[in-house]
């Protein structure tokens, strides 16, 4: 009797799930909005995001804005299927494959692991893939083939310059990074290469998981670093609040790598705006979708403009004042 119940339950579960799946799949691609040009083919875009994360969410928002700026209207010119892998590589793989099976016109991979999974899934049908929020597309081997996008490479020199101006006497910058994130590893290399030019030494502590981050922060505080600088390292940014608690107590300023971190309580950042990055990505995607260009024609882009975001409250708390050279060039993070 038990066995029959098991079988029935499993069968019911599978059937319900597949039934829901089918229903969604048939309604998404062909549901023209009222008043829309029903005859025209609607582009279907599959968006695969690696996890829930303010910067990545901003990328996605920006991407959709970019499409609109290029004159594509959601529900008329395109529909999109947004899937989030919850930082699970296996789910990212299945998301890519389900996009390929749906024959989407374009896949968007937000963050490296999702982009790599989309690119692997798109290989067979040669579906174009657009990525964003990847620091080093060359290292990730996403720089050739039917793929292009935008890199969120940090303006390292601008950050070093900013720290030098705000803390003229500082000597050591402490950085926590995840050893398995290629983005972080390549950025640390750049920091170490360029720190000397600004009179800094870098004290980098590697971690392998989020659980080790606060201990790494304690280590750096014990090393008496003059400040912390963050990368766009997901593990580190994820527990930024806990790091800030420790550094505030020790009176050590923390510099962020983008505006969201400054809003959270970092003192300042020479950072990129992920919404802007997303918009740039959306504009590229629009060219590929409408056939104005192919991915091969569009080399991947980095955002050249960055802003100097500050958090005045935190700067005051650390006793740092804005030097005249920077006056007027900074943006209050809360207002950004």
């Amino acid at each position, binding site marked *: 009797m*038990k066995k029959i119940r098991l079988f029935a339950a499993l069968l019911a579960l*599978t059937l319900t*799930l597949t039934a829901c799946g089918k229903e969604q799949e048939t309604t998404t691609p062909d549901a023209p909005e009222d008043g829309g040009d029903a005859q025209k083919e609607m582009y279907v875009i599959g968006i695969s995001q690696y996890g829930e994360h303010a910067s990545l969410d901003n990328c996605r928002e920006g991407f959709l804005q970019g499409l609109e700026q290029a004159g594509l209207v959601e529900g008329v010119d395109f529909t999109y299927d947004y899937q989030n*892998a919850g930082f699970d590589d296996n789910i990212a793989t299945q998301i890519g*494959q389900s996009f390929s099976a749906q024959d989407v016109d374009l896949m968007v991979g937000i963050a490296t692991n999702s982009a790599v999974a989309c690119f692997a899934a798109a290989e067979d049908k040669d579906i174009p893939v657009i990525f964003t929020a990847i620091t080093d597309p060359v290292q990730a081997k996403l720089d050739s083939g039917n793929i292009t996008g935008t890199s969120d490479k940090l303006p390292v020199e601008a950050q070093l310059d900013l720290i030098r101006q705000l803390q003229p006497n500082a000597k050591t910058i402490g950085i926590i990074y995840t050893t398995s994130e290629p983005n972080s590893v390549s950025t640390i290399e750049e920091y170490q290469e360029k720190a000397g030019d600004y009179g800094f030494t870098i004290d980098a502590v590697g971690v392998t998981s989020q659980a080790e981050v606060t201990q790494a922060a304690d280590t750096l505080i014990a090393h008496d670093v003059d400040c912390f600088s963050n990368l766009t390292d997901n593990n580190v940014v994820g527990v930024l609040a806990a790091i800030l608690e420790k550094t505030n107590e020790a009176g050590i300023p923390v510099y962020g790598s983008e505006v969201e971190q400054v809003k959270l309580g970092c003192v300042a950042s020479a950072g990129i705006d992920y919404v802007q990055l997303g918009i740039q990505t959306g504009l590229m995607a629009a060219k590929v979708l409408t056939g104005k260009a192919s991915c091969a024609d569009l080399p991947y882009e980095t955002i050249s403009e960055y802003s100097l975001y500050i958090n005045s409250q935190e700067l005051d708390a650390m006793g740092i004042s804005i030097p005249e050279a920077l006056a007027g060039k900074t943006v209050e993070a809360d207002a950004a």
Partner: protein
Amino acid sequence: MLDLLISTLTQGLIYALISFGVYITYSILDFPDLGVDGTFPLGAAVTAVLLTRGADPWATLAASLAVGALAGLLTGVIHVALRVRNLLAGIITMTALFSINLQIAGSNLTVDRGTDTIFTAPLTMSLFGGLTLMQRKLVVSLILVVLVKVLLDLYFRTKSGLLLRAVGDNAGLVTTLAKNRGVVKVVGLMLSNALVALGGCIVCHEQRSFSATMGTGQLVYGLAAVIIGVSLMNFYAASPLARAMRGAGALRYLATPAGTTAVIAGSILYKICIQAALNAGLPANMMKLATAALFLLVLVLSGRKGEAIIHA
């Protein structure tokens, strides 16, 4: 829809290799080996490094089997020689492998499209060149999994294989036979981890990438696949249809499917459930909860061992 079915089946088949490994440790040896979460990316790391260095794609299969067996040997030695509890022995190996994997691969590693994998190698192309890549992936995975299944079934009938099964069922018997239980356990762990690493190798070929975090949750996946598969097969084996077939000469082989067949079925079914949940729009954040619920449901409804015909 057909494409989705093909790629989901492929995933189920590839991950069946991991489930075979879990089947050997958990079901046969009664050894919950958490080392799986480290051995799976180990196979992928070795494969990614070899592929990027221009090694023959087929050689990576042998290499990952070998490193996987070494990882199993490590867990076995920690457990048997150093007398560490089985659960902890696996955890120690898993933790050590995280660093070792990163040492091997440097950091997360991608294999570019120009590099041949087992799905695009000359041998594969000469046999199945007419198929699309997606179909080739299915066919090659199917051949590999069936091959491993047949070899495993044959192995379980050898003296060594029978001893392996005896250790989990009735450890005393093995001692009575004047055999060393420890050695048998180590052999089982080596075999299991070799298969898990092979799974990691094939996933790396298929995804063209290694990531340090790809091993997270693989043991749970393998367990779920084994338990779902074995429970379903027990249900089938106890059904009137199977009972009738058992009395009918040649058909009796169909009436009692091998444990390995059950594992393949479980792996495929589990991947189908995940894909269906994704398609139904279940938020990714809820996925693990859904997995846990499904897992618990199957465990409770199958009533654990009971009058099981096949081992779970």
